[in-house]
C-alpha cells in the first residue's frame, strides 16, 4: 500500500516544555495505524502536531507534500479530518447543523447522499436530527463527531481516544463503525487509544509511545500475538 502520511523526527511541545522527542511513523492509504501509550505519553500532542495546532519540528508529509507550517484550516482542506479529545462537536448547534459544518468545505452535489449514508450508519443521530448536540449522550456525541469528520470526505482520519469515557457496549458499536469506515470508505486512520486490545484488533501498524518517544513498533497482528510485549508494555 502506498504511504499516505509519513512523519519523521517529529518534535513538538507547549511553550518551553517539550512533549515529543522525535517520532517516526506512517499511515498507509486505507490502512489503520494505532498509537498506543499511557496518559501523558504524547499521543494527543502527536495528533495536534499533524493538524498544525502546536509548534513542531521535523517532517510531516501528506501525499508527498509537507504540512509543516500550514494553518489548521488549510491542512483540513487537504483532506485530514480530526476528531480531537473532547470530540470537537458544536454543542450549541443541532445535529443537522453539525452535519452541515462537517461538509463545509465541499461544493459537490453528493452531500445529501452522504448525510443519508451516515444516518444509515448512525440511526440514532437521525432520530436526534433537530436536537442540540449538547443534549446527546456521550456515545451519541462520539458518533456525531465521527460522522462530522467523515463528511469532509477525508483521506486521513485522526481519532483521539474514541472509546474514552464510554460504556463497553457503546465502545463495541463505535469500533464496529470504524471497521466499516475502513472497509467501505477507504480512509486511512490514525487511531490514538489507551485500550490497546481493541486498537490492535483494528490496526495494521502499531506504535507504542512512552514519554514522547516511540519505544516499540511493528505489525499490529504480531504485537497482539507476542505475549512478552503485551505483558511488559501493554499490561494485559
Amino acid at each position, binding site marked *: 500500500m502506498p504511504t499516505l502520511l509519513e512523519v519523521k523526527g517529529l518534535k513538538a511541545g507547549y511553550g518551553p516544555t517539550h512533549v515529543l522527542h522525535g517520532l517516526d511513523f506512517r499511515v498507509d492509504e486505507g490502512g489503520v495505524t494505532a498509537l498506543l501509550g499511557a496518559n501523558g505519553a504524547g499521543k494527543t500532542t502527536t495528533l495536534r502536531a499533524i493538524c498544525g495546532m502546536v509548534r513542531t519540528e521535523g517532517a510531516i508529509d501528506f501525499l508527498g507534500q509537507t504540512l509543516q507550517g500550514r494553518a489548521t484550516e488549510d491542512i483540513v482542506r487537504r483532506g485530514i479530518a480530526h476528531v480531537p479529545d473532547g470530540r470537537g462537536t458544536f454543542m450549541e*448547534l443541532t445535529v443537522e447543523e453539525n452535519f452541515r459544518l462537517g461538509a463545509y468545505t465541499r461544493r459537490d452535489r453528493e452531500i445529501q447522499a452522504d448525510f443519508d449514508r451516515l444516518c444509515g450508519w448512525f440511526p440514532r443521530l437521525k432520530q436526534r436530527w433537530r436536537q442540540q448536540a449538547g443534549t446527546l449522550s456521550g456515545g451519541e456525541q462520539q458518533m456525531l463527531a465521527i460522522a462530522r469528520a467523515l463528511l*469532509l470526505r477525508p483521506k486521513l482520519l485522526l481519532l483521539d481516544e474514541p472509546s474514552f469515557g464510554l460504556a463497553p457496549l457503546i465502545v463495541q458499536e463505535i469500533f464496529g463503525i470504524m471497521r466499516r469506515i475502513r472497509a467501505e470508505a477507504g480512509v486511512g486512520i490514525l487511531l490514538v487509544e489507551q485500550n490497546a486490545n481493541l486498537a490492535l484488533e483494528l490496526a495494521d501498524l502499531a506504535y507504542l509511545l512512552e514519554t514522547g518517544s516511540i519505544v516499540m513498533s511493528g505489525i499490529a497482528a504480531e504485537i497482539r500475538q507476542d505475549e512478552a510485549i503485551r505483558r511488559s508494555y501493554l499490561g494485559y
Partner: protein
Amino acid sequence: MDGLAHQIVAGIATGGIYASVALAIVMIYQATHHVNFAQGEMATLSTFIAWSMIQAGMPYWVAFFGTIVVSFAIGVVVERILIRPVANAPVLTMVGVFIGLLLIIGNATGWIFGYTTKVFPSPFASDRPLFGGLVSAHELGSTLVTLAVLTLVWAFFRFTRLGLAMRAAAYNPRSARLVGIRVGWMLALGWGMAAAIGAVAGMMVAPVVFLDPTMMLGILLYAFAGALMGGIDNPAGAVLGGFSVGVLENLAGAYVVGTELKLTVALAIIIGVLVVRPSGLFGRVVLSRV
C-alpha cells in the same frame, strides 16, 4: 391615555435603535468575549459619511446603501489592522485598545466634520401625523427599517452556509478550524456586519437627536443596558432587551424621573441586572465545577 400610548410607541421606535446597536455589540461579544466600546463612535462616523454623501447631492437611499457598504469595509479593516494583532492579549489590553479606538474615531470624526450640530434628513418626512397623532412618519419608518435589518441578520445566521460558519467560529473556534472554516475571516466579517448594523442605527437616529460627534454616546449606554438585560451572549435577547429599554426609558422619562434624568435609567438597569441577574433575562448561565 393617548399620551401613554404615544410614549410606548415612541419608546419602541428608539428601542429599535438600541436593539440594533445592542445586536452589533453582542455579535462581537459572542465571537471575542469583548465589548466593543467604540461601536457607537463607529456608527457616528458612518452617519457623517452618509451626511457627506447627501450633501454631495446623492439621493437619500443611494447614500444609505453606500454608507452601509463603506461601514462594512471600515469594520473589516479595523478588525484586520487593529484588533487581530492583539486578539490573544490580556483583557486589560483589549479594553485599552477599544477605548483607544473610541477616542481615535470620535475625535477624528470631530476633526474631519467639525463639532457643530448638523441636521440629518429623514427619508420618511411627512407633515401629516399618522394614526391620529399616535406615531410620526419617521418613527414608523425607522422602526420598519430596524425590523427589516434585524430580520435580515436573523435569516442570514439561520439559513446561510456562511452564517452557520460564523456561528460555529464564534461558539468554538478550535472545532471550526477542524472543519476548514477560516476563523480569522469570520471575525473580520462579524466586525463588518456589526459596523453596518451600527451605521443603519446611526442614520435612523440622527434625524431625531441631530448629528454631532457625540451623538451615539447616550445611545451606546442604552444599547449596552439592553444587551445586558437580554443576556450579552444572546442576540435575540439583546434585541428584545433593546426594545424594552427603549420603552422603559421613554415611560420613565415621561412619568417618573423626567427627561433630564433619563440616562440614569440606563445606568440603573445596568447595575440592577449585574446585581440581580448577571446573565441577563435570556443569557446562558455558565456553571463550572471546581
